[in-house]
């Protein structure tokens, strides 16, 4: 039996995820730092005017520069710098004078056999990102670099190992990337996923990237280590690659942490290495070990000149900064009178529906009810085009008891389709406010029809009563064709039982 099987884990409330060894009783925590590469949403590539476009015919978006042809020279795309600065400022980074450097290594998807990146003087340094749960994750740097082409492995298994040969498409070569290097402040697999969610929201809000993990425009590598809780030293880490979804990210971190605890509990050591996540097998595997440490021979790229953004440019970027997710959550939460950590608030901002919600609240709609609809009933295409005044009106009708929750959901669906006002839709559908005396009469009639059940309801235990409550509500709904408000029915039943008791 392996040591891992002797371990139990319990997610602890909040940010910590620990693994407790049954054998030793030691409690381990996970330390994760994420490196995110995102492709910037520019029209053209980083250093040439070829289209920056995903999914085109192979080797069509190429020119002498991005093919690294002899004699070609790079010229920096202004929009890349602007987007990188905007992203950096959104991550509370300091924007510094920076230079480009060449990272030298041979690889066939890299046309010049060096990558132009930023090394010792990156554009953005020392920022942070606040997660919705209040955790602050440090950002070490967010620098500009160029993407590589794409290798397709042919023959053999179709994967790199065992392939007979490979085919190279350079459409992606030279696409602008920002690499965001997060500090190891993450302690939980779920938190890692939240970090990516939040970062993606920032990338979308700033227009820096479309941030699609499935298309590879957002790529995540995780540096994972473990240590005994309370130990100030960081453990030796492994870099996990090939994380193609948030699900993979969470699973890989959890697997890798257990693997490392297992090793350490058995008196072995963790080898610092790159490992690949195998989603099918649900495990990480070591990469091909290198015979020697890489020596990238970084030096300043002589074909480019330094960037010195200066105070004015940075101020202009700050002045044009769109509202960011954290601020948007605060605004919405304040307007709705709830906490910014409420799921509905987080979801509203993630779905870009916070402006709609705010407008509906401003038009007199009840905050909680508005958020309830946003969270549960508006996860549909085109929801952002809903008329906020109509939305507010709907919520007001609901609060006034003119519509039941079920009816309100139906009306909302119709509003999205037809654009009509909620009162008109309610009238068309025959959703009429039911007078409370009318409802009482119907409930009394049903009680009279079912004396045995009623006796049982009044005298039975809680479990039995719960079942029978469903029975009576169901009958009332049937009798009213669903127009009765379930809450009101329950209140009447309760009042009658008390009177009978």
């Amino acid at each position, binding site marked *: 039996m392996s040591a891992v099987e002797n371990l139990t884990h319990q997610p602890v409330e909040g940010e910590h995820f620990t693994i407790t060894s049954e054998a030793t009783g030691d409690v381990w925590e996970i330390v994760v730092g994420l490196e995110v590469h995102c492709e910037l949403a520019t029209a053209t590539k980083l250093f040439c005017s070829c289209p920056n476009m995903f999914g085109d015919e192979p080797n069509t978006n190429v020119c002498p520069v991005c093919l690294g042809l*002899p004699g070609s020279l790079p*010229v920096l795309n202004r929009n890349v710098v602007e987007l990188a600065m905007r992203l950096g400022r959104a991550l509370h980074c300091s924007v510094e004078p920076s230079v480009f450097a060449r990272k030298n290594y041979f690889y066939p998807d890299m046309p010049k056999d060096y990558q132009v990146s930023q090394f010792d003087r990156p554009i953005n340094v020392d920022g942070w990102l606040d997660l919705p749960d209040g955790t602050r994750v440090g950002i070490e740097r967010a620098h500009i670099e160029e993407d590589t082409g794409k290798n397709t492995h042919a023959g053999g298994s179709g994967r790199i190992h065992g392939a007979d040969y490979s085919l190279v498409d350079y459409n992606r070569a030279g696409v602008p990337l920002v690499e965001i290097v997060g500090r190891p402040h993450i302690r939980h697999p779920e938190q890692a996923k939240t970090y990516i969610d939040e970062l993606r929201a920032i990338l979308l809000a700033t227009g820096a990237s479309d941030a699609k993990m499935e298309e590879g425009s957002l790529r995540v590598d995780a540096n994972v280590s473990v240590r005994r809780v309370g130990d100030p030293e960081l453990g030796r880490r492994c870099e996990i690659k090939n994380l193609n979804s948030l699900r993979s990210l969470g699973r890989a971190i959890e697997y890798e942490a257990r693997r490392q605890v297992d090793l350490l509990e058995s008196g072995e050591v963790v080898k610092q290495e790159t490992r690949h996540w195998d989603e099918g097998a649900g495990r990480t595997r070591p990469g091909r070990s290198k015979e020697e440490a890489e*020596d990238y*021979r970084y030096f300043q790229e*002589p074909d480019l000149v330094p960037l010195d953004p200066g105070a004015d440019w940075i101020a202009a970027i700050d002045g044009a900064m769109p509202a960011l997710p954290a601020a948007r959550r605060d605004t919405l939460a304040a307007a709705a009178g709830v906490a910014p950590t409420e799921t509905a608030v987080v979801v509203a901002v993630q779905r870009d529906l916070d402006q709609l919600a705010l407008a509906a609240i401003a038009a007199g709609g009840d905050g909680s009810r508005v958020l309830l609809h946003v969270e549960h009933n508006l996860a549909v295409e085109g929801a952002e085009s809903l008329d906020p005044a109509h939305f507010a009106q709907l919520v007001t009708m609901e609060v006034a008891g003119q519509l039941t929750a079920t009816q309100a959901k139906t009306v909302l669906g119709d509003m999205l389709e037809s654009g009509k006002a909620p009162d008109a839709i309610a009238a068309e559908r025959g959703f009429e406010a039911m007078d409370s005396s009318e409802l009482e009469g119907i409930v009394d009639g049903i009680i009279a029809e079912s004396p045995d059940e009623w006796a049982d309801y009044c005298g039975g235990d809680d479990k039995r009563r719960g079942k029978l409550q469903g029975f009576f509500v169901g009958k009332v709904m049937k009798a009213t064709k669903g127009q009765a408000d379930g809450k009101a029915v329950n209140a009447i039943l309760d009042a009658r039982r008390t009177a009978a008791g």
Partner: protein
Amino acid sequence: MAELPTTAVEIAAAVRSGQVTAVEVLDAHLAAIDAREGEINAFNLVLADEARAAAAAVDARIAAGDDPGPLAGVPLALKDNLCTRGVPTTCSSRILEGWRPPYDATVVQRVAAAGAVAVGKTNLDEFAMGSSTENSAFGPTRNPRDTARVPGGSSGGSAAAVAAGFAPISLGSDTGGSIRQPAALCGVVGVKPTYGLVSRYGLVAFASSLDQIGPFSTTVADSALLLEAVAGHDPLDSTSIDQAAPSLLDVLDRGVEGLRIGLVTELMGEGIAPDVAARVRQAAAALEAAGATVGEVSVPATSYGLSAYYLIAPAEASSNLARYDGVRYGLRVDAPTTAEMNAATRTAGFGDEVKRRIMLGTYALSAGYYDAYYGKALKVRTLIMRDFEAAYEHFDLLLSPTSPTTAFRFGEKVDDPLSMYLNDICTIPTNLAGHPAMSVPFGAGADGMPVGVQLMAPALGEATMFRAAASLEAAAPSLEEAFA
């Protein structure tokens, strides 16, 4: 046939005025190539058919009343490290054999737009690494003044083509002296402009922070004409200076009255052949006689120039030449894996000198050595720039030999890299500083071979430099004049 004009200035004027046709001029030069190219080997490729078509097009424009431009009908040779669309561009390396670029270098476009007629691609030391053209994969170029001697390098083909009368003007590239040194050894004018004055787009890179394209010609005026045509901002080169090309032809007759010219002490002593030093002193005297003030000046850091250069240039080259990996163009030597194919291709495709410099540069940048070598060399570069700055506080121009010796014989230095590198001792400092410099022929050495004197100027000081060059040209002794 009436006597044809020989200089670019005269040819362009005669063609533009209809006195001669571009085709006539071209035919005369193709005849000169036919007569002596077998012996000289200045060209990797002669573009006779393309040149005839281009010359005919120039003549057609003249006939139609158009002005084809300031280089109308002037035959021109291009160093074979300048990209020419659809025309093989080899850098005199096996690794690029057969490669046809899908684009023209900016300078190639500019000379064509100015009406010049490209007659061929000239030989060079492989990837411009060398000082004798002996490192060409396609055999050395010979010095037209004495075919037992080297023409210098790396732009030996471009220098020899002009010296042999194959074309009145040519373009070369200068990373550590590769225009000025062969110009001196072949007895022609050669100019390295201010870094950033001429676009590098389409120049196959050797060392990006040092490379500059510049002209060769038989007269100072022709170099001025060609430099005016190719200089000026290019948005495709981030290191291109954003200002218009300087006016040079207009200032050539202004003389040197009142100019302060400094003879660089460090470049006149040890290692400089006495006959060469004597010609430089004679040139200094000639400038003084023409009205300049001449004094001696020390530029101490220049003595570290060679060491710094032979760390910086190979470091950049080791990265610039990584792309020759057998994947996208040029040579491939097959092997079972990509890494082995890369190595087999590079091993077969590069010559000894290129391998030497790639390894030297790789070493200078590698972990554990960067600070001691490459990092130090960059700091020396700062010292050299400071020392030049101090010198230019007191002088408008500096003067030195271009090359420590006249043209040497084949095989003399090729197996001793360090002694070959010492050829560049006078030219390297200006590359490190990014300043302009040019070589002007000034008589012969004791062996009867040409001597070049070097004029150096601060950044963008071309106009003043050309004024002094014109004065030197006027005062220069002929090659036949016995060495005093």
